[in-house]
């Protein structure tokens, strides 16, 4: 079976004043339809760059991305992005923010009444139907992110790209949002790539966890299949041996194999890490 998304041989080189900086080297990844894939790695390893390349917000230096047999060259609504800091337009209400996306995507195919229904359906999906007329400044961080997710879902994207969607939220809100996201996934079965820092989040939500090595010249280190049955429940999983094994695998990768050594003199230690990962 052909994969929905094919990231092949992607290198990303940024020209800097001191010469070229290779951020990504030889990133290869296939994502199937309906799959939930997490990208995990230390900060600065280029996870966001991978996501931005898939989104079309930046262009790979070499290699490319194919989505549904078409090459990705520019951003587009079929690759909806949920940004880390919600990125809602502060002058529009929750409804207005979703409306902007819906009008753009379905302006020609849906009638006004259908669009209204669709916007309300998506806001209801993220449990924000009670605050549709509130502006981003009037709602909490978690609620803003819900609206951001509703906006992305409302575009009916072929793939949903989430850039640390819950990174800026407190732990309780984050857990709540993860449960919501699983509930939505259960219903819609979207194809998702999510960037995260959070090991528990990755194991809980994903079908596969893609672990990235440290930069520069970061690449995919290991891929972990998560075969835990769905629906998943965080409380039940807390004592599940398989869950804890998987969690341990990720932790081992992050904190033993790819231990981030904060360099005091930023030269030697970093090159040492690259040699170790080979």
């Amino acid at each position, binding site marked *: 079976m052909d994969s929905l998304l094919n990231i092949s041989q992607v290198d990303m080189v940024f020209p800097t004043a001191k010469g070229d900086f290779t951020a990504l080297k030889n990133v290869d990844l296939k994502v199937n339809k309906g799959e939930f894939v997490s990208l995990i790695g230390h900060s600065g390893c280029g996870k966001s760059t991978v996501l931005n390349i898939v*989104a*079309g*917000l930046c262009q790979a230096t070499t290699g490319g991305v194919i989505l549904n047999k078409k090459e990705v060259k*520019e*951003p*587009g*609504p079929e*690759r*909806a*992005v949920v*940004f880390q*800091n919600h*990125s809602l*337009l*502060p*002058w529009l209400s929750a409804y207005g923010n979703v409306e*902007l*996306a819906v009008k*753009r*995507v379905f302006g020609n195919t849906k009638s006004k009444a259908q669009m209204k229904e669709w916007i309300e359906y998506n806001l209801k999906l993220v449990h924000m139907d009670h605050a549709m007329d509130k*502006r981003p*400044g009037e709602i909490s961080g978690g609620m803003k992110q819900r609206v951001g997710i509703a906006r992305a879902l409302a*575009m009916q994207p072929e793939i949903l790209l989430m850039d640390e969607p819950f990174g800026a939220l407190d732990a309780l809100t984050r857990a709540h949002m993860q449960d919501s996201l699983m509930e939505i996934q259960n219903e819609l079965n979207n194809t998702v790539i999510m960037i995260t820092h959070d090991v528990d989040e990755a194991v809980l939500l994903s079908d596969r966890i893609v672990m990235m090595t440290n930069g520069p010249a970061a690449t995919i280190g290991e891929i972990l299949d998560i075969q835990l049955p769905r629906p998943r429940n965080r409380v039940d999983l807390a004592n599940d041996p398989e869950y804890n094994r998987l969690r341990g695998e990720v932790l081992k990768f992050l904190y033993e194999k790819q231990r981030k050594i904060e360099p005091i003199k930023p030269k030697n230690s970093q090159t040492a890490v690259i040699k170790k990962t080979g």
Partner: protein
Amino acid sequence: MAIGIVENKQILVSMISSLKTVLSLLMKQALMPMIGALAFLLLWSIAAQNIDTSLGKFPGPSAVFQQFGLLYQEHVREGEKEAAFFVRQKQRNEQRLAQDPEYVVKIRSYTGKNTFPQQILTSLVTVMSGFLLAVVIAIPLGISIGLSKSLSRAINPIIQVFKPVSPLAWLPLVTMVVSALYVTPEPMFDKAFVTSLVTVTLCCIWPMVINTSIGVATIDTDLVNVSRVLQLSALTHVRKIVLPAAVPMIFTGMRLSLGIAWMVLIAAEMLAQNPGLGKFVWDEYQNGSAESLSRILASVLVIGLIGFLLDQGMLQLQRMFSWDKTSEIR
């Protein structure tokens, strides 16, 4: 009965306490400005008594406030004269027609001097026209510069050079160019009006261009990315993302510009003898009567007051257009 009295007492107590808060608010809001104003008036009158000019003593507050009354009376008298002129003209024309039915009636306009309120009106119309012309040019220009880095690099040096040019330097050029280019058999506007207007526009356009372009260029990249992901058309991008995001900066520019426009206009009217408050001041200076200084001071106060009101008006407009009603706009 007894319960009623208790209730009344409670109402009375609450009334007194609310009265107290109102009073203390009034003290804070009104008392200090009043003390400031009184101190200023006192200093002014003391200073005025000690300044002797060739036109007599420097006018104190009372002389200036009297002058406001006189200026108004003058306006009323001039209005009566004008009405009388038209009545006479009408009568004369009717007589002529009665004598000679072939006579073609000529209506002549009244050529009496402009009174103080008329000069104020002229200045206001001119400043608003010049400012609006500047807005119409500056905001689209500022948006284009803000959106395109190369355009910004191309135009920015020119803006930086023209921005500090004094209106007095522009004026001779504008006067000559307007005289050369604005030649129509039946001009819709007075040449002097056009000269003042163009000078105002040239001087007040820059802060608006600069602020608009900065407002547009500094939009959150995440919001721009949202627009890119949605593949919004250029027009929708400007309408839905760029304009609302830049509104605060645009209004900051507009307020700066309107203040400059008003200052420039008075200077331009003085130098070019174009009708308006500036000309009024200059005429009084040339006139050199015992009244002149107090009349000039009266117009200085009016110029200041109008400048303040224009700024406040702009502020209200900003409040109306701003999407962020919670942020404090000063």
